């Protein structure tokens, strides 16, 4: 553990490293970034995120920011949102984007998949009721299309409807015409994105970042 000596006086990193699986180096880099974003304060607010210029052209900016303040992503089985987060929560949310390591069993890979899909699910399920309703899904599609000039509300609606129909068909198979499909539960979500291989796609490279030079 030579890295431990390079970061003297940071015993809390050990605890964080264990919890999130990051290396000390990565935690150090992320801590620097955290301090940069929060202007050296202890906690991050939503406004700090809004200050990031590159994020402004992202169509799903609001949902991403919300995801950081969503207690469900803090791995403590909490619910609801918070107004500000500390470095620990920041790191925990970031840890959802760690790639699976090379030597992993199938179960570990499976649990990482569930973890990442849970994160996505939480992002869609804004009102925290455990299902993604048609309205919420429509909202997702509208957000995705929000930066194109020719947005026809009906097109977004029909895309969301078609997508919802597909989920319903895959999950429920046969339904009576008067039955109502409440929304996408987490299990249905898993089934839907079964072939998506999210554990290889939803990853960020956390190495080799020198964030001090990339200040805004």
């Amino acid at each position, binding site marked *: 553990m030579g890295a431990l000596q390079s970061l003297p006086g940071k015993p809390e990193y050990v605890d964080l490293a264990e919890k999130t699986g990051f290396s000390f180096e990565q935690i150090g880099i*992320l801590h620097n*970034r955290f301090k940069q*974003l929060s202007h050296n304060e202890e906690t991050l607010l939503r406004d700090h995120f809004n200050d*990031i210029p*590159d*994020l402004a052209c*992202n169509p*799903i900016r609001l949902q*991403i920011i919300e995801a950081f303040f969503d207690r469900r992503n803090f791995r403590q089985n909490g619910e609801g949102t918070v107004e500000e987060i500390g470095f620990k929560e920041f790191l925990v949310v*970031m840890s959802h*984007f760690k*790639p699976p390591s*090379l030597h992993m069993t199938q179960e570990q890979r499976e649990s990482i998949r569930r973890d990442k899909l849970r994160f*996505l699910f939480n992002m869609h399920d804004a009102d925290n009721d455990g299902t993604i*309703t*048609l*309205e919420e899904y429509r909202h*997702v*599609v509208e957000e*995705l*299309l929000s930066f*194109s000039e*020719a947005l*026809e*509300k*009906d*097109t977004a609606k029909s*895309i969301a*409807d*078609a*997508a919802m*129909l*597909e*989920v*319903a*068909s895959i999950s*429920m*198979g*046969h*339904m*009576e*015409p*008067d*039955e*109502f*499909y409440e929304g996408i539960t987490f299990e249905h979500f898993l089934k*839907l*994105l079964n*072939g*998506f291989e999210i554990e*290889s796609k*939803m*990853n*960020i*490279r*956390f190495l080799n*970042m020198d*964030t001090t030079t*990339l*200040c805004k």
Partner: protein
Amino acid sequence: MAELRLARRSSFLPLTGLMCVLLLVFVSVASASRDVTRGDSHNQTNSTAHKKAFPVLSFNYEHVRKPFEISLWILLALLMKLGFHIIPGVQNIVPESCLLIGVGLLVGGIIKAIGEEAPVLDTKLFFLYLLPPIILDAGYFLPIRPFTENMGTILVFAVVGTLWNTFFIGGMIYGVCRIEGGQLASVDPLSCLLFGTIVSAVDPVAVLAVFEEIHINELLHILVFGESLLNDAVTVVLYHLFEEFTHAGTVTVVDAILGVVCFFVVSLGGILVGAIYGILGAFTSRFTSHTRVIEPLFVFLYSYMAYLSAEVFHLSGIMSLIACGVVMRPYVEANVSHKSYTTIKYFLKMWSSVSETLIFIFLGVSTVAGPHAWNWTFVIVTVVLCLVSRVLGVIGLTYIINKFRIVKLTKKDQFIVAYGGLRGAIAFSLGFLLTNSEMKNMFLTAIITVIFFTVIVQGMTIRPLVDLLAVKKKKESKRSINEEIHTQFLDHLLTGIEDICGHYGHHHWKDKLNRFNKAYVKKWLIAGERSTEPQLISFYNKMEMKQAMMLVESGSTAQLPTIVSSVSMQNIKPRGPARQRAIPSISKSREQEIRKILRANLQKTRQRLRSYSRHDLMIDPFEDNVSEVRFRRQRVEMERRMSHYLTVPANRQETPPVRKVCFESEHKVYTYDDSKSPRGWTAEPDPSPPDAVSLLNESSQRANQSSEHRAKHNDELRAKVPDEKEEQDQLKLSRCLSDPGPNKEEDLS
């Protein structure tokens, strides 16, 4: 089962008979051509003696000899290919490329036995006519996303891997030659390096031919295939370099540096040439809306010109062709009509298939025909070294690459990448170009042996090995709208996270490129409204188009499409807060009128809406009634209507939404019949309503609620009609009923 085999055999026999006959015809014609020339000169002397009678029937083969022979060869090759697919069981054991080589050997043997001169795989023929279609097909349909995601890995394998192979093989061969002595002693190091260059490049044709059949997962496919495409630049540079050096005699450091510079010029220049032609092609396709018929030609010609232009300057033609296809494709596809797109796709597949078949057959024929100089040591050492260097190269490079990859390559992946490094016809053609004839025959023999070994042995065994190692296969599922939504969502999410981290990574630059593309490039290269269409919407359009085609086609072929699932739109629509009936009861006579009118217009309304939802395809009652003309007209109308709906702002309340309403109201009206007789409709002699409607009728007696759903749905579609007042519904009903035909209006007004 016995009948099946008998049937197969009985179709097999005429086919082989036909092929034998063709072979004989070809061979006899080839020898007859010589007699004809002799015969002609004989006739000349005779004619001076006495006047010949007017020839009613004459034989003049020389006139059409060349095209005749070419056509015959191609026909023979394709019949062989056909034959392999008819014979049961062969396909699973032996890959097609091996069979074709076998056929080539057979044909070459026959020709040689007769004493004729066999056609050889002429280098010019190969590089200018046979190779471009295959590469264009590969480049045009290159899956861009996995290719760019793994670009680093592919480049490392292509450049560093090929360099390693070249120098390792060349060096070791030289060492072995020195040790062996004898015939091999005269081999100089540069020739060895040249030989190493030729034999070390992974061949795209062979890789495609073998990997197509084993359906391996996308990552491995793109790694091996991408490597085979991109190593062309390295091969070209090294080949010319060593060729020059062999003539010059001495090598200096300056030459080596120039070689490196040359590599960059060749590869980047090739890509630049290809990109320029690609942009030209895309720009041209913007204006072809009035002359749809020649659209595919533009794609083919611009790409071919890109290839030839690159070859003029000794740049990498393959990379130019790939760059042209990749750059052109998104814009051309947005501009051309659906028919042109299908034409392009099928012509490319057709040409590349023919080329591939011909290449393998010629390879077999040339093997038999060509001059050979067999040297046991040399050949065996070459084969062994090829394998060893490939394995070592892959293992070493993967070790380095895995440090930089997010998704690491496992040992299984490495094995497949190493085993899939097949050599093919490019190596053979390059060997043919060698000018140093003393070593040429020996080199050629060794190259041919390596090619045979990799294609036959490795090609045949890779499939059982893939099964044995349980390598992940390609997932067969179609792209669904959900996956597309989530792919886009994930892209934006990862870009956002990267921005939050402050890390300018892969996603950040991709996002920047996309925005640049949308803001500037698309405006120039895509015609009309499509230029501002977001990707999600164009994907959705494409899917709806496909589904509509399927619906119409299934309707015309009198085949009942199965109902995929009984989940339909009403199941997901949220129920309105008020559960009272929104539709007033209609009087019986009124109902009759409505029924009559709707029945007469059902043909038009049938196709209108249900294609928008994927999962309740309906049984078509009209399959026996629909004539060809009507069917075509309906299809055209539907196409037009669909594009009309999806690209025109939805505020227009007239035509498209009303048609939707119209269709919904059919259900509404029909459900009223429930009280009378659920099966009342089907008893009618006239065109009956879609069976799914009656299905709905049967299963739900609470028609009111479903009709109320429709009303709610109609409201939403009708853009901002929030409440369900009864008058509004009446209005809708009458308006919709008046829509289908102008002559119906007077009935209701």
